[in-house]
């Protein structure tokens, strides 16, 4: 149950993030979750959106460099130690986390953690074994 994430290469240039989001607005693409990884000169915008293929196409048509990559969306209890418990399972299974970002719909309820690891298949099976909820794309959109 891998999820398609869209990654966009962004130069560190004034207004570039805004331009990217404007393109998505024009396509009526809705963003569920978003994170930005940045260095001094460039950044990568990562998003979970409702229409990943359309979003990629629109961004590319507007001169952006975009790529779809697979990630895993994991349900975590919105309480202290919720995410740590999940990471402990991955650590035990010798899985490296490349990046994570999280979003919460309403405080106190379930949070969703989007993550990319060194091995997505293994991550899914390890977490499912431990009873951790893995979200499908549809579930994520309806969350």
């Amino acid at each position, binding site marked *: 149950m891998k999820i398609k994430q869209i990654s966009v*290469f962004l*130069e560190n240039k004034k207004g570039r993030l805004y331009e990217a989001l404007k393109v998505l607005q024009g396509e009526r693409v809705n963003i569920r979750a978003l994170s930005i990884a940045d*260095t001094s000169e*460039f950044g990568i915008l990562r998003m979970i959106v409702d229409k990943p293929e359309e979003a990629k196409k629109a961004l590319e048509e507007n*001169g*952006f*460099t*975009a*790529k779809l990559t697979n990630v895993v969306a994991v349900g975590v209890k919105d309480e202290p130690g919720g995410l740590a418990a999940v990471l402990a399972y991955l650590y035990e299974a010798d899985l490296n986390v490349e990046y994570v970002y999280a979003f919460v719909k309403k405080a106190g309820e379930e949070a969703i953690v989007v993550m990319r690891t060194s091995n997505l298949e293994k991550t899914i099976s390890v977490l499912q074994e431990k009873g951790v909820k893995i979200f499908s794309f549809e579930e994520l959109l309806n969350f």
Partner: protein
Amino acid sequence: MKDGSFWNKKVECLPEKELRKLQLERLQKIVSYVYERVPHYRKKFEEAGVKPEDIKSLEDVRKLPFTTKEDLFVDYPYGLLAVPKEEIVRVHTSSGTTGKPKAIFFTKNDIELGAELIARCLVMTGTTRGDVLQNSMTYGLFTGAFVMHYGAEKVGVFVVPAGPGNTERQLELMQLFGTTCVHMTPSYALYVASLIAERGIRDRLNLKRAYLGAEPYSEETRRKIEEMLGIDVYNCYGLSEMGGPGVGFECPAKDGLHIWEDAYLIEVVNPQTGEPVEDGEVGELVITSLCREAMPLIRYRTRDLTRVIPEPCSCGRTHKRISRMLGRADDMFIVKGVNIFPQQIESVLMGIKGVAQNYQIVLEGYNDFLVRVEIEKEFFDGRIERLLQLKEEITEKLRDEIQVRPKVELVEPGTLPVSEGKAKRVIDKRKL
């Protein structure tokens, strides 16, 4: 290697001794000619204490003063004209970046000479009757397009005078007329080639060769274009002051450019001292036009850097070869006391996977400089480590080549100025 054929075999393969004899005769003639007809040259020669009869050997050319760009602006625009104005049939101007453009005049014979030299160049690389040449250089004041046009027509080639830019139309014309060869700048060729690849229309084209000139480019760029399009790319060299393209041209050996020595006498000198360098050493190309009528130039400082390739060429032509242009004497920049040419940067970048065609060098100070590099679209996989590794690889490889560690900035594909003409690669922000 394919067998090159000849347009004028007798001259192209003239034995070395006869070629030198012919050059000396023509040098003596042209020196007297400008001495008698051009007051500015007479004055320069007198100031240097040299008379036409002092030229007794080809080496004696060194007794003559250089002609520089500044001389072209004395009594502008007709100061160096050697014929009555009525003899002029055309003017071309150089793409001057600052101030007045250089004005170069042509008589009917000068036009014919240019066409003859281009005819040799085209036939040498296999272009002949039945070929379709799409001429995508600028028609206008720039010499590039016209001189090639006349030369191609002289051979009997079908010319499509497309001019530059409007790449959509270029591709349409190529398909409509079955273009077999193109004449354009290397940076534009890269752009066209990438568009052809993107559209997947290579199979619909009949392209065999490209003649690329008007700006220096590296061997890596040539190979990249050859691979992208599956064609032969030939390097050509020329300058308006010498009548345009066709001064130097590659034969099928693709190992240096033959200078048509019956029409041009070349020297390579140290750009600082003006003294000749050894054969094989890099220096500034200095050219004397031996046959031009309207505006012959004596020992003209081209500001282009090259070196002579002394070995005889496998194609059988006796005319001397020079290396591809290694940059402009003026483009050279100095960082931390090291002389750096943009060509060095380009050849490193073209050898790195993940790097797209465009790059830019930004000079910010005397101790460091910035290289902005477009990444290739396909290279981006969403991982930041991969980009950081690429940046590191570029930085290290550049440092190995030029001994100075540049700052490297990765930018989005397609954001650096697209080159539909001469690409501006170096931005100098230092207050000089």
